[in-house]
């Protein structure tokens, strides 16, 4: 018997709302008011998210972000800084008591990322799990992921890179002191790939078509790999209200953004 999961496709939103909605879904599932949930979403305007333990000013040129109209947000999950632009982002929330929630975080990554690996395979891309939290295709990173556990639930969110502009990325991300900008950009270009790069036939696709096609494949991939029965839905009014509240009071607040 398949596991019933709610499927949300919430479109493109500001960074603070996106993080607010992920936390609202976590709380809603934790309180038993919603089914375990798989959500797909995007970012408008583009954004930089940093991991819970990262120092804002060590990772991000906040002034450059402001000038370029790029949002900055701190996640509730660990991991590294991410420039969210041409990508599909997903989140998955389930109780820790659920059979798909493994006690060990690394085991959970391995299991849940099976959904993305299967989705990429449906698209025609052979990919594999690269511990701790990445998926690689042809030896290069195509997906980065982060997981936390709170209120008796597991939240994992991550990105599937559709297209990558490393030069633009490093107009807003800081370059570590020990590296030169040019060297770092070359390093990243050699270590990161994208769906557009892996699938030459997608070169001519618009971003909107590639985004929609990728989500279709990921839905099938999650359903197959994790044995999910996905029920298309929308966030509840209570979830949307809480997401707005968290976006304003937590994720947009300087206290939170500059926590470290």
């Amino acid at each position, binding site marked *: 018997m398949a596991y019933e999961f709610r499927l949300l496709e919430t479109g493109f939103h500001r960074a603070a709302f996106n993080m607010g909605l992920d936390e609202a879904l976590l709380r809603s599932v934790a309180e038993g008011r919603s089914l375990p949930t798989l959500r797909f979403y995007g970012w408008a305007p583009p954004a930089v998210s940093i991991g819970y*333990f990262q120092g804002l000013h060590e990772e991000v040129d906040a002034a450059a972000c402001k000038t370029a109209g790029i949002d900055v947000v701190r996640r509730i999950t*660990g991991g590294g800084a991410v420039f969210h632009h041409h990508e599909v982002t997903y989140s998955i929330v389930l109780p820790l008591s659920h059979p798909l929630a493994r006690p060990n975080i690394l085991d959970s990554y391995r299991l849940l990322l099976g959904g993305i690996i299967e989705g990429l395979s449906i698209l025609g891309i052979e990919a594999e799990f690269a511990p701790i939290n990445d998926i690689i295709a042809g030896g290069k990173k195509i997906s980065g992921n982060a997981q*936390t556990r709170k209120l008796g639930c597991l939240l994992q969110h991550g990105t599937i890179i559709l297209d990558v502009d490393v030069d633009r990325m490093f107009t807003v991300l800081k370059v570590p002191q020990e590296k030169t900008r040019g060297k770092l950009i070359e390093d990243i270009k050699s270590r990161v790939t994208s769906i557009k790069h892996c699938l030459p036939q997608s070169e001519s696709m618009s971003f909107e078509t590639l985004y929609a096609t990728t989500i279709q494949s990921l839905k099938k991939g999650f359903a197959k790999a994790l044995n999910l029965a996905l029920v298309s839905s929308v966030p509840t009014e209570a979830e949307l209200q809480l997401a707005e509240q968290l976006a304003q009071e937590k994720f947009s607040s300087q206290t939170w953004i500059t926590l470290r």
Partner: protein
Amino acid sequence: MRLELVGKPEGCKLLRMTIDVEPPLVPSSRIRSLSIRGDFFAVPEEAFDELEHKLEGTTLEELGKKFDGLVRQNGLECLGITGSGLDEIIQKELHNGI
């Protein structure tokens, strides 16, 4: 005195530490305060914040061992950060500083 340390020890993510220590800079210097940052994972995150405070008062040479002990005691699951990784970064600084 304040130490600003960065490193990526084997098996760890990029780790950054700001440590205020009582001078002089020797292995037995006591830590007045410290902040550990980086792209590692520690769950629950809030327990890591508390762990940082509990490391205050320990010596530089004991930091890694104390860190690992507190991770166990507080039921934290850490990925990409270890006591030996923190020690490696500190040892490098001590080697350079002495």
